């Protein structure tokens, strides 16, 4: 499969995503510089983590005006697969590919640690192997200062109705609790999709949990889902 990883000024997980896709999962990867106006022919676009434009002003607020974003939005709105990780998720919110907004973590600080997330909806191109392989709880690290997700009540209701809440922070047994919510995120939300389920934004970093040497391979499950989905296996 052909993956395009967008490189914004300040992206710093672009190379990590490329390593997992290329070296671990043997996929084709191309980096797309943010000043490009058109995406190359691609099966999936990844907006990687990092500090695009230094997170100055507000995470993702400036990156969404990068020239490439117009084509990324077009691609996502026309059914193309877009995965936004951490800063990429924040950019997707700012670009209105996904509903809601991010606030600064409840403790006001950057938090980097392993967390557990519960797969709330396995019927997406990003998560469907979770059901097939019986993995409802994933161990994947977070690393962010602005991951405290918020959406107004009507939007949240609408998202629930359409199964758009994909991941929630939970404990190791899969129970969503106050203590397992690291950043104060609304209802422990860790990842959401659009109604069509082709655009996913998540705060945890699956690329950091894709090799056993690093302590977890649960993140690779999401990439493998994408690849399997793209290879034509049905949902």
């Amino acid at each position, binding site marked *: 499969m052909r993956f395009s990883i967008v490189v914004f000024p300040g992206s710093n997980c672009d190379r990590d995503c490329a390593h997992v896709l290329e070296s671990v999962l043997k996929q084709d990867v191309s980096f797309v510089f943010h000043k490009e106006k058109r995406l190359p022919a691609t099966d999936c676009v990844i907006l990687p983590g990092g500090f695009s434009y*230094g997170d100055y002003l507000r995470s993702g607020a400036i990156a969404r005006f990068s020239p490439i974003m117009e084509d990324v939005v077009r691609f996502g709105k026309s059914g193309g697969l877009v995965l936004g990780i951490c800063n990429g998720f924040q950019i997707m919110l700012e670009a209105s590919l996904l509903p809601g907004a991010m606030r600064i973590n409840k403790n006001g600080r950057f938090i980097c640690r392993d967390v557990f997330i519960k797969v709330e909806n396995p019927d997406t191109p990003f998560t469907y192997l979770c059901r097939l392989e019986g993995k409802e709880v994933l161990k994947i690290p977070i690393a962010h200062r602005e991951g405290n997700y918020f959406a107004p009540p009507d939007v949240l209701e609408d998202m629930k109705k359409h199964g758009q809440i994909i991941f929630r922070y939970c404990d190791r047994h899969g129970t969503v609790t106050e203590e397992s919510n690291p950043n104060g995120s609304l209802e422990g939300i860790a990842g959401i999709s659009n109604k069509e389920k082709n655009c996913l934004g998540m705060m945890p970093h699956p690329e950091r949990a894709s090799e056993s040497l690093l302590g977890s391979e649960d993140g690779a499950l999401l990439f493998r889902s994408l690849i399997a989905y793209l290879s034509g296996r049905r949902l």
Partner: protein
Amino acid sequence: MVERKRELAISLGLSNDEYERILSILQREPTEAEIAVFAAMWNEHVSYKSSRVYLKEFPTKTKDVLVGPGENAGVVSVGNGYALAFKIESHNHPSFIEPFQGAATGVGGILRDIFTMGARPFAVMDSLWFGSLKHPRTQYIAGGVVSGIAFYGNCMGVPTVGGETNYDEAYDHNCLVNVFAIGIVREDKIFFGKASGNGNKVVYVGSTTGRDGIQGAIMASQTFGDEAGQKRPTVQVGDPFTEKVLMEACLEVMAEGLVLGIQDMGAAGLTCSTVEMASRGGHGIRVDLDLVPLRAKGMSAPEILLSESQERMLLVARPEDCDRVLEVFRKWDINANIIGEVTDTNRVEMYFGGQKVVDCPVSALTDDAPLYKRPFEKPAYLEETQKMPRVVVEEDIQSAFLRLIDDFAFRSKRPIYEQYDHMVQIRTVIPPEKGDSAVMRLIEVPPKGVAMTLDGNGAKTYLNPRSGGFNVVAEALLNLACVGARCVGITDCLNFGSPENKEVMWQFREAVLGIAEACRAFGVPVTGGNVSFYNETNGRPIFPTPVIGAVGIVEDCSKCVGIGFVDEGDEVLLLGNVEGEMDGSLFIRRCVGILKGNPKCVDVLLHKRMIDFLCDSIEKGRIKSAHDISDGGLLFTLAECMIASEKGLGVRCRVGIEKDKVLETLFGEGRSRVVVSVPRGSGHRFLEDARKSGIPARIIGEVCRDALRIEDVGLCVPIKTLLAFHEKPLPGI
């Protein structure tokens, strides 16, 4: 007029004698800009004028060292065509004045040193020494420093993966912030900070030049009085986003082969980078200061020359490559301006407003810089402190132990390292607090990995600077061995008081000699480092605190072990001496309340055997966890093995303590002692192996559920109690 210039020179930190020296070198009155240049180049921080005579003692060569001291960072080969660039630097003075920005720009500076070599930085570690909790400023400093490091390192996408954090009243008025960074580079793509080739262009890239940080290096070469707060304008302000983009652009022009020489503008800014590049390249350099992009109006030539605005680099390129260089920087939206050229005059020439404002031989600023062999004298305090009293404790061992682990040394540093992105770049195999060293995989040359540790011990170095220097190297090497790594090089950060104080100079000399002796004894090169003098306030110096950053290689990083116990039933062994040393130990400092003793150097032969044995055994997969016994002693170490255990395991021990040696066994430190756990049933065979390798060893217990038990003394502390102490908050964080 003459006197006005002398006053200017003195206000910039030059001495009267040094001003006379300038007059005799130039054979005329210097211009104001020249005074600025001399002051910048001849200050302690840049010239090492008080330390150079001793730093020569360090061994600096092995077959693996590709670049030794004198460049922006040392470089050591890891084989397969790749090499590691690493270095440690201090940002003590600015961090005390303005903790957040001081620490942030410390990270920024050391990362520039690494990518200047052509290496992509992949890890940062910090050695932090704060004052006691009693001091009102400690919490403010600790909190600011940690957030500053997080702010800069996280945005750069370089993980902060380890280090040490200490609190002691010796650092009440002078905190230490030592930052280590490491990067990876192809052996045939190493770059140097040199300007050569007559007519080649000098290109300024990065942020504009402003009035921030003017005289920063000069400030760092002075002690503090009560007015430290007024020095805030000498601290630079960091912009990690600009540096991240600057790094990508620099690595790109380097990869394209467009760069002949490159140097960052750190201490003493444009002055230092131009002069050092010309000096290393054996050429002259001509710069037009009017072409330097400025962020403030009306800056004078001395201001431009002394500004320490961050995120700036200087590079040298062939005239025909300049268009492409400028194009790459435009792509990344980074300033790039041609500001001068390399000449064959061996002179530094600077123009400003159409006038030549600096014109002097390069060598006058570098080779002819003053070199001092400062007077030294054995400190009077040693007579008193080196008398080690016989230690007796009234209370039982259990309550003494519980008092000991109430120290900050036992507390989890999680509130610190969780603020740092310690996983970005997906290399972190052993994360903070899980091993005696951090271990990063080398994706470029799998399955190799690199282990890194920072070690310092101010209190013990205060008691005996010679053994302090020696043992801090020995401990760093043992920390590497406990994950399975063999040292390939060290970088040192030497934090001391004023070199003009004879007793401080004695401490410095002794510590350096100790480090040098250890390096020779263990066959380890020093590849670079940093000296930070003048860490004293109102005449009170800090503890002499050499901090060693050691780097080791492991052939297969999947075999590395951590400190945490792994499985119930595993056998626990004590390798090395049974008793440790009480001199200067955490126990006598915290539980007896005295700082006394005369620590000895470790036994080189035993220490070497221990290192070899650990590395071999870990490589063969015979060890499941290893932790050296340092601050706090055996009990403290066992408690840490429990806390780091993923499964929350305990240990049941019968140590076989000799009568009258209870304290030395349980609380004594150092002396090449290591606690290891091995698979159930393999203990006796392992014991034999250790003894055959010439290492005293005994099985002291086994990994069990939920408590630390020492049957010899009836001690039993549940893991819940240990965790409660471990999770107490760190002040200010």
